[in-house]
């Protein structure tokens, strides 16, 4: 059972790491625009669309 002395702190540390990551993402505003991210994934890496001046759908 002495393995617990290592395993429990490791488990807690990993958990806290996850929590810290969550708090960081919340503070940096990643939860402010939940719909935008789903759309941004469709962007091309190259900025090709920026030149055209199409009229957007209304």
């Amino acid at each position: 059972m002495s393995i617990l002395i290592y395993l429990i702190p490791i488990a807690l540390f990993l958990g806290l790491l996850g929590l810290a990551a969550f708090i960081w993402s919340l503070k940096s505003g990643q939860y402010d625009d939940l719909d935008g991210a789903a759309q941004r994934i469709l962007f091309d890496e190259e900025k090709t669309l920026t030149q055209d001046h199409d009229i957007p759908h209304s």
Partner: protein
Amino acid sequence: MGRSALSDNAQLHSSVNGNHDTQILSGYETLVEKTPEGLNTISVLVSGVYCAACIQKIEGSLSQEQDIILARLNFTTRRLTITWSGVPEQSNRYIHIIENLGYTVNPFDPQIWQEESKVEERFLLLCLGVAGFAMGNIMLLSVGLWTTTGETMGLATRELLHLISAAIALPTILFSGRPFFRSAIKALKGGHTNMDVPISLALILASSMSLFETINGGEHVYFDSAVMLTFFLLIGRTLDFRARKQARAGASDLLDTMTGFANVIEDGKVRRVLIRDLHENQYVRIAAGENFPVDGQIIEGQSEVDTSLVTGETLPRAIKPEDDVFAGTLNLSVPVTMVVSKPAKDSLLSEIVKLMEQAEQSKAIYVRLADRAARLYTPVVHTLAALAFLGWLFIGDLDWQAALMISITVLIITCPCALGLAVPVVQVLATGKLMKNGVLIKSGDALERLASIDTVLLDKTGTLTLGHPTLEGNPPQEALRLAASLAAHSRHPLSKAISQSYAGVLLETRQVQEHPGQGLEGVIDGKPVRLGSRAWCGDKNAPPSDMLELWLRIDNQTPIAFFFTDHLREDTCDCIEALKKASLTPIIVSGDRNHITQKIAKECGIERFYSEQTPPQKFQIMENLKREGHKILMVGDGLNDAPVLTGATVSMAPGTAIDMAQNAADIIFMGKKLMPVHTTYNTARLAQKLVKQNFTLAVLYNIIAVPLALSGLVTPLVAAIAMSGSSLIVIANSFRLKVIK
């Protein structure tokens, strides 16, 4: 503030920057703020953004500009933030770039955006996150604790695991339980209780009892249950908050129409001024197709206004000098000049917003069924627990620890699990069932409120009827073709109706002129053609008709008439009939003229109707009915209905309603039928019945379990089985909603 000096500066800069485009509109530099790093930043609302390509286009075009440091569009809030180095006046050019792409930009007023609700949402998410991570970690330990006994793992190990659980759970409950504790304290301070009081108490008791057990080396601790309860309750709380936040967006949407600029004429020059800064006696120029920014009086020009936003009337009203116009109405045909009679904050539109806010506040008084149950439940349970403690201590001769243990068991076994589930499970199932039928429920307790109504207020245009005039009968195709070719040049509702009923190819039309209040004139195939009123180009000797009409005159030939009506929805009469059968009283409240309202009321069999009502009058009718003790369902689709939609006991809007009304309503129904109003009412009644059965079941369970707990016979295992059993029964009963037709 020297704004005019700044504007001149802006013009100067745009030419310095080598922009050869058409005139750049100034005014945005007044909204620019400085960041601590000395950069300029501006936030604007962009409308017309629907997909990824829009984000790409806007952000991409801006980031090609030299000084831009950041351009970011929030897709959820449609808010664009631009940061750049250089001078504030560059903002005008950036806005111009976006407008050139075809989007509409509105100045963003941070006062309107409720920063408050954003903070609240972050707080809930943070609590939820912390509870989630704590739950994951405690479960790791609990698997070990619940699958073996103390003898197998060794007592020292068990105590270690208990201690670690305590170290995770106690801070978590103190941190993540705050939404419940706060609400409970607030309720108690107000001298009543709500569902959060028993929840808070259960959390505090479960953790303090577990802590007591941990310190005394006891066998079972319940830190895991306490943290899990917190986590699940927080999920529900967060989802509920999001739904309500969307509903609240209503008021700010309306204000959007007042956040733009107005063209003020001063000393013969046009200057752009923020609408909120307009003051009395200023002259404002309003182009065709523009909204009137404030209330005022026409001083120059004759045009037609679409007042449907404010009065709900279908047909435009002709305006001439000295006529009053209201903020939010639309100038249809010719540019006019008005003089401001009231600043924006006192306009009729603002009055509607104020009424809505007022209504919103009075609505907060509604007490959910679950909270009403808690009001009965909490004192009873707490008295029982206190009696158990005193009884075992003085009559049963137990020591105080054992007596306290029994009293805590009483409190925990009546833990509001089943009671807490009774309402939400039914609501989730009912909402899902209605969603499949095209009815969207926006707030959790809307169904509960709907089940209690006895009066239905109905708007006429767009609710009982389809909301737009349609062409009657079958006019000759050739005449329709000519009329449609001409009508394509106008925004008048009757012109639109003609355009919609003609699907073929249009003829080339030259020299089109719109004569406000009269009609359209143009040249087709070398012949002058007129489309308009009877007095202007119609046959004055034709028998009068009570339908809406348009006349087409080609050259000097005999004019041809087109007739229009605003049709009732196909099932309006059936729906009214069904509502009456359910002993509800239907009443029409309309902004339209008396004889039209009367005709519609007669057609669908409604005895009571009010016509020619302004929005505040509509609101007054609802208030009076409420005062008489009636519970009201409002069904409406226009801005003029918005205050009543917000203030009524519960409200519904068709999917064709303006955004504003949809935001104000609790329930939205899709499709061209009115029957969903009745279907939703029926489902709400059924859901209410099931909720009451669930409460009965929960009470029955308590009648059996509480005496056992009082007698000290309940072991932790029995408590666990009894509690999950009661929850399962309640869930099973709720699922009957899916079976019952």
